[in-house]
């Protein structure tokens, strides 16, 4: 899958995309989805909850692993993607950067997203981890 250039990446495999309306959409990368393999459970925040840059906003589990979902920016949750659920991870598997998004937030400071990695840096990280 071609990873988009218009999103920023975290070392912990989340991505964030600044929308035209100033909101930020957050998800996890195709690499993370592949690594977690057999997804079984996802725990996402509720609309209105606050999220903090660098802190977990939820959890995602496979049969034998559990991972925190880390937010690239601080802000307030505006929407949660309810097509991604314990019963249905197909959107996440097929389209991690599109229909498989997880939450949409109103950032306190959208500039925080700049601290995350570019696609090139993220892919460099993946290449290093493979060795």
């Amino acid at each position, binding site marked *: 899958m071609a990873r988009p250039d218009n999103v920023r990446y975290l070392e912990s495999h989340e991505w964030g995309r600044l929308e035209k309306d100033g909101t930020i959409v957050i998800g996890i990368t195709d690499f993370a989805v592949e690594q977690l393999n057999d997804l*079984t*459970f996802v725990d996402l925040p509720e609309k209105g909850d606050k999220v903090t840059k660098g802190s977990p906003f939820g959890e995602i*589990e*496979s*049969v*034998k*692993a*559990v991972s925190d979902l880390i937010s690239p920016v601080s802000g307030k949750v505006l929407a949660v993607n309810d097509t991604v659920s314990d019963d249905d991870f197909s959107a996440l598997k097929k389209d991690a950067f599109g229909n498989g998004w997880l939450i949409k937030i109103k950032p306190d400071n959208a500039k925080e997203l700049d601290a995350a990695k570019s696609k090139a840096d993220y892919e460099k990280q993946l290449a290093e981890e493979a060795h």
Partner: protein
Amino acid sequence: MPFIQNTEADRAEMLKAIGVGSIEDLFKDIPANLRLKMSDPGMLKLPKGKGELEVTRHIQELLAKTKNAGDYAYFRGGGIYNHFVSTLIDHIALYDGSFITAYTPYQPECSQGTLTFIYEFQSSITALTGLEVANASMYDGASALAEAMMMGKHVSEDRHRKENRNTFVLAGAVNPEYMQVCKTYADVAGIKIAQVAPGADGRVDGNALAKALTRKVFAVAVQSPNYLGVIEDVEAVVAAAKENEILVVQAVGEALSLALLQSPAESGVDVCVGEGQSLGNHQFLGGPAFGFFASKKEWLRKMPGRIVSETKDKDGRRAFALALATREQHIRREKATSNICTNQSLCALRALIHLAAWGKQGFVELAEHSVAKTQYAIQKLTSVPGVKLAHTGAPVFNEFVIQAAPGLEKKLLKKKVAGGLPLDKYGKGRRGQYLVAITEVTTKADIDRYAEALAEAMKGKPVAV
């Protein structure tokens, strides 16, 4: 050397293959000055090893310095009960190495034996409690209650997100061993424990309970039958907890009571924990037996302990496997809701064999015998002048408290009667009270002997009114 099969020649060959001169060369990361010198008899002061004959003699000598429940007409319970244990259980669980020398069933393909019996055990606990989710067992009843407390806290953190509820209520007469273990765990977890004392009839005082169940409380536990043997109105506790969305935990000290009493699910509790020793496990001075832990399905993901689920193999055959492992510490690490790694599988297996060997009818009969003998014992003991029931007006199952006189214990022991457990230390105003336990093992002759010895011991004591 005992249990080691490597010969000197083997060892030499193996060292050669490894490429070192001596075994000690493999321990070079331990500073030389800290390595114990076996040539110095002052180091590692342990006795010489004994062979099977010698160790058998030694154990017999130690046991000669003990007495056990079988040496008396025995009337003590208080959490561990002198029940009959079928020989079937030891044959399957103890003497056949297939279960006892296996490990936790991490590899389902070569552990279907263990996984199947755990699934059947869970099913038995569901049959007894009516609750849909039972785990593979816990250490004991006391720590199962402490785990239920911790779980209640986690449930509340989700359910009442901004309330910071921090109080755990122990309602009525809870086994002091359970209370102490909860307190130890609560201390480090920063949980406050509030106790509601039992009323005059031995049951939870409803008014006091209603006052205690504020929105600061995340869970309330009630033991039934309680430590005084009295059967609680668990439904009333559930009703009292409802308004403030407080998790209700029922603790069961005598699992046999589940044969007759309203099931925890019928009473409406969220969680039921208990001590399983009564189900086919020996007394062993209090352990090992096991704790059971069952819950409404709602709280499944917050539950501690191992859980086995039915599933299929890749060819579509029925198979069993550990499920929901991501709740557990080996995966969740510091975010786990419990640090427990194991269960008490072998003790759970014993319980399963016990329950199946007695079966649906037999298990009820066991309980009915206990009830009949208990009624006889109450009548017999309270007909001794100066002796009466400490709590009246509420039903008891197979334990009850008599009010007699202090200091009777030794006199009874001399007559080969281990009478009820003195309750002096359990609470204020309990001097001269004894907690009497009856099981199917207790005979009419035992009870008669107790009554006779009690009458003798009570001579000249002030008569209770």
